[in-house]
């Protein structure tokens, strides 16, 4: 324990050295802006910035890349809330409640909640990282295909189990997402599936961001056009020191769900198969399930912004663990980090902790500092971000539209995906008119491929025996929790009825 404290202190001191500290501030600021721009993927951003890292020592370089990665996690929420377009796939769940809050003139409240929750998520996870990295790395190894599948079932359960929504419609929406997720090359045999004849654009499957930007960006704009009939809508947002204090007082309202989201996010992040997007969706689902007022979710509940933001920040720290100890990057951005490490002769693996402690602890120390720096920069910029919403609709709408097209084009650089995005926009608008929840479809397309892969791997390993999912303790526990989550709203309704009958 003492040795950890000593290592951590030296790591934090290392991160506070002038070069390293400047790299952190620079990285966080760039990351924040990169994350906030739907068109500018953090992968391209980081790849283009890689040369900067050759001007400074290796530790400073990795810290810089990590700070960009970290800042981007905060930044993703900004466009989700102000524009309704997820800046990154990790910030999709933030749109669910962030956008309605912004539309009702409470963008500042949502942005502050996102920043504070990100800070809490980041802090909790980096503390968990400091204290339990080696045992958690060992625990993550226990996750084979059956455990991964059980975890995915649990993630789905957090969404089906939501009280209030129309259950058949939720299931229908999940099924649409699963069908879309099946498009592309079969993961076991490599044969193409559902490519509509031979349209090669479908071979790589449906890009998740294309779906999300279509539904939330384009679909939302169509909806706004219909409801306002093109009227100029100016959102009034006033920022003052007093409103800041009021908004900070909100913390009490979401501290519980934020903590839960952080722990779950961190844990899901440490599993190489999952990553920050499922983590944020699960955090959102749980926040809603355990809320005293689940009906207000999706209509502008601050907890609905705080939970996924805590989840994705915690997961982004968590995913450093498999990268450092196993060499498996959890996201394209961490993969670039990995590339940086290889160039400096730092081979990720189980021995990195003991052979290069100064590097590992310098990185961990920098996460503490980066977290603090990013939340301060973010809070300072919020008045600027909020100003975006005061733009007249006639300027804002075309801007959003352009950002959607750029964001749809950027990941694969094909027009195929842009057309697809428009299609999803129209479908998303129609689903909304018909009162179907779209969030479960979004969840399904993220988790579908992960669930399919682990299911098929498990069944190959067990020669087709389904019992493999209940024979292994970790997967059995996940399956049981999933069952409990699905039945929780039913039981709660029953109990409430009895209570009211009794009273």
């Amino acid at each position, binding site marked *: 324990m003492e040795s950890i404290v000593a290592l951590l202190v030296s790591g934090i001191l290392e991160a506070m050295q002038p070069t390293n500290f400047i790299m952190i501030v620079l990285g966080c600021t760039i990351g924040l802006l990169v994350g906030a721009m739907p068109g500018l993927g953090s*992968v*391209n951003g980081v*790849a*283009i*910035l*890689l*040369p*900067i890292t*050759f*001007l400074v020592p290796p530790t400073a370089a990795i810290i810089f890349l990590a700070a960009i990665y970290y800042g981007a996690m905060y930044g993703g929420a900004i466009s989700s809330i102000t524009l309704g377009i997820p800046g990154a796939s990790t910030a999709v769940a933030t749109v669910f409640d962030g956008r309605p809050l912004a539309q009702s003139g409470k963008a500042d409240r949502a942005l502050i909640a996102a920043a504070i929750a990100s800070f809490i998520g980041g802090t909790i996870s980096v503390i968990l990282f400091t204290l339990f990295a080696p045992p958690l790395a060992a625990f993550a*190894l*226990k*996750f*084979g*295909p059956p455990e991964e599948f059980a975890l995915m079932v649990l993630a789905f359960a957090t969404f089906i189990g939501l009280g209030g929504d129309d259950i058949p419609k939720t299931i229908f929406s999940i099924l649409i997402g699963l069908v879309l997720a099946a498009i*592309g*090359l*079969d*993961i*076991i*045999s*490599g*044969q*193409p599936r559902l490519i509509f004849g*031979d349209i*090669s654009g479908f*071979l*790589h*499957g449906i890009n998740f961001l294309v779906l999300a930007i279509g539904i939330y960006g384009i679909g939302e704009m169509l909806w706004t056009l219909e409801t306002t009939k093109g009227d100029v809508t100016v959102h009034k947002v006033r920022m003052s020191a007093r409103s800041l204090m009021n908004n900070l007082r909100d913390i009490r309202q979401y501290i519980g769900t934020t903590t839960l989201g952080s722990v779950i996010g961190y844990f899901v992040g440490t599993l*190489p*198969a999952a990553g920050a997007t499922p983590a944020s969706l699960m955090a959102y689902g749980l926040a809603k399930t355990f809320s005293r007022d689940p009906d207000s979710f999706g209509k502008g509940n601050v907890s609905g912004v705080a939970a996924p933001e805590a989840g994705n920040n915690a997961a982004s720290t968590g995913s450093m663990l*498999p990268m450092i100890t*196993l*060499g*498996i*990057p959890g996201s*394209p951005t961490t*993969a*670039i980090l*990995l*590339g*940086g490490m*290889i*160039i400096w002769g730092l*081979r*990720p*693996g*189980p*021995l*990195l902790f003991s052979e290069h402690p100064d590097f590992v602890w310098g990185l961990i120390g920098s996460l503490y500092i980066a977290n603090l720096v990013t939340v301060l920069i973010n809070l300072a910029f919020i008045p600027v971000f909020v100003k975006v919403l005061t733009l007249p609709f006639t300027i804002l709408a075309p801007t959003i539209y352009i950002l959607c097209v750029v964001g749809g084009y950027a990941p694969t650089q094909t027009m195929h995906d842009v057309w697809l995005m428009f299609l999803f926009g129209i479908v998303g608008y129609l689903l909304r008119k018909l009162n179907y929840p779209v969030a479960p479809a979004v969840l399904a397309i993220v988790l579908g491929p992960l669930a399919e*892969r682990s299911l098929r*791997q498990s069944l*190959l*390993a067990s*020669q087709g025996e389904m019992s493999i999912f209940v024979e292994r303790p970790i997967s059995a526990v996940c399956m049981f929790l999933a069952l409990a989550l699905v039945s929780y709203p039913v039981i709660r309704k029953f109990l409430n009825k009895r209570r009211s009958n009794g009273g």
Partner: protein
Amino acid sequence: MSTIFNKSGKLMLSAVLAVATAFGVAGTAQAEWSPKKPVELIIMAGTGGGADQIARLLQGLIEKKNLSPRPFIPINKPGGSGAEALRYLQDKSGDDHTVLVTLNSFYTTPIIQDIGVDVTTFTPIGRMALDNFLLWVNTDMSDITDLDSYVATVKAKGKEWKVGGTGSGQEDSILTAMMEAYFGYEVTYIPFPGGGTVAKNLVGNHIDSTVNNPAEQNEFYRAGNTKPLVQFTAERLPAYPDIPTAKELGHPIEYYMQRSINGPPGMSKEAQMWYIDLFETLFNSEEWQTFCVEDGLACESFLKGDELGAYHQTEIAKHKDLIEKVGAAAITGE
């Protein structure tokens, strides 16, 4: 000092530098081509595997040595044992800003699956290395100490024995099928999205054995998590002096994997020449040669352009024979 100045200059004033480079180039060689926009470095496998590590190292070296006026951006397209990447390159016909880092699935995937890609039409650039294969098990398997005890155990377990790999039709599945045919046993092959994930599942005991490249297992071997039993090379690798080759033990199983760089069909001659120069410089760099030694890759000679094209032809013929012999079904596990 001057190179440092150049680099920071490039970052802040990339537009100015582009003009400057254009002038500089015009001054030295008239028809010299160089990238006008970021180059996509397509990896036909998942993150953390051997191909991925190589691509990311190359990307870093290009930046570090300032060898390209535009950055190289690694993109993983692991779908369908590389089918996704091959189709992507085919669709990019005539493009001068996309190159592919290959594995042997470059040969095998089009033979096994009907994906409408003829890789002999691709533009060969350079072969960076030959990668090697070893047979690995978890160190917890104390009963298995050599190839004989391995074969005996696998025969006893039959289909219960789980071999992890990077995809049906990938080189490790071919080598697994070769071993099945030679030793007369059958195992269950489970595909994962990349060599790194395979290694993780071996360390976590979710699979029983794998044929990984040295780069994918080295760190776990050093940490005592996994152990190699046999190498499928002609000679013992310098990095593994105590591990016998299959050939020494009287089993003529030898298999290598080329790590080469190829452009899409119809890449312009000028661009091809530029990439050949670039990758030859990288091949001869100290960093690359050190990487080869540390990671058990063979990097004796750089095959370029048409030499590589001819090499591809013979390898395709070899793999067709091999696949015919063991049967495509044995590889895809159907």
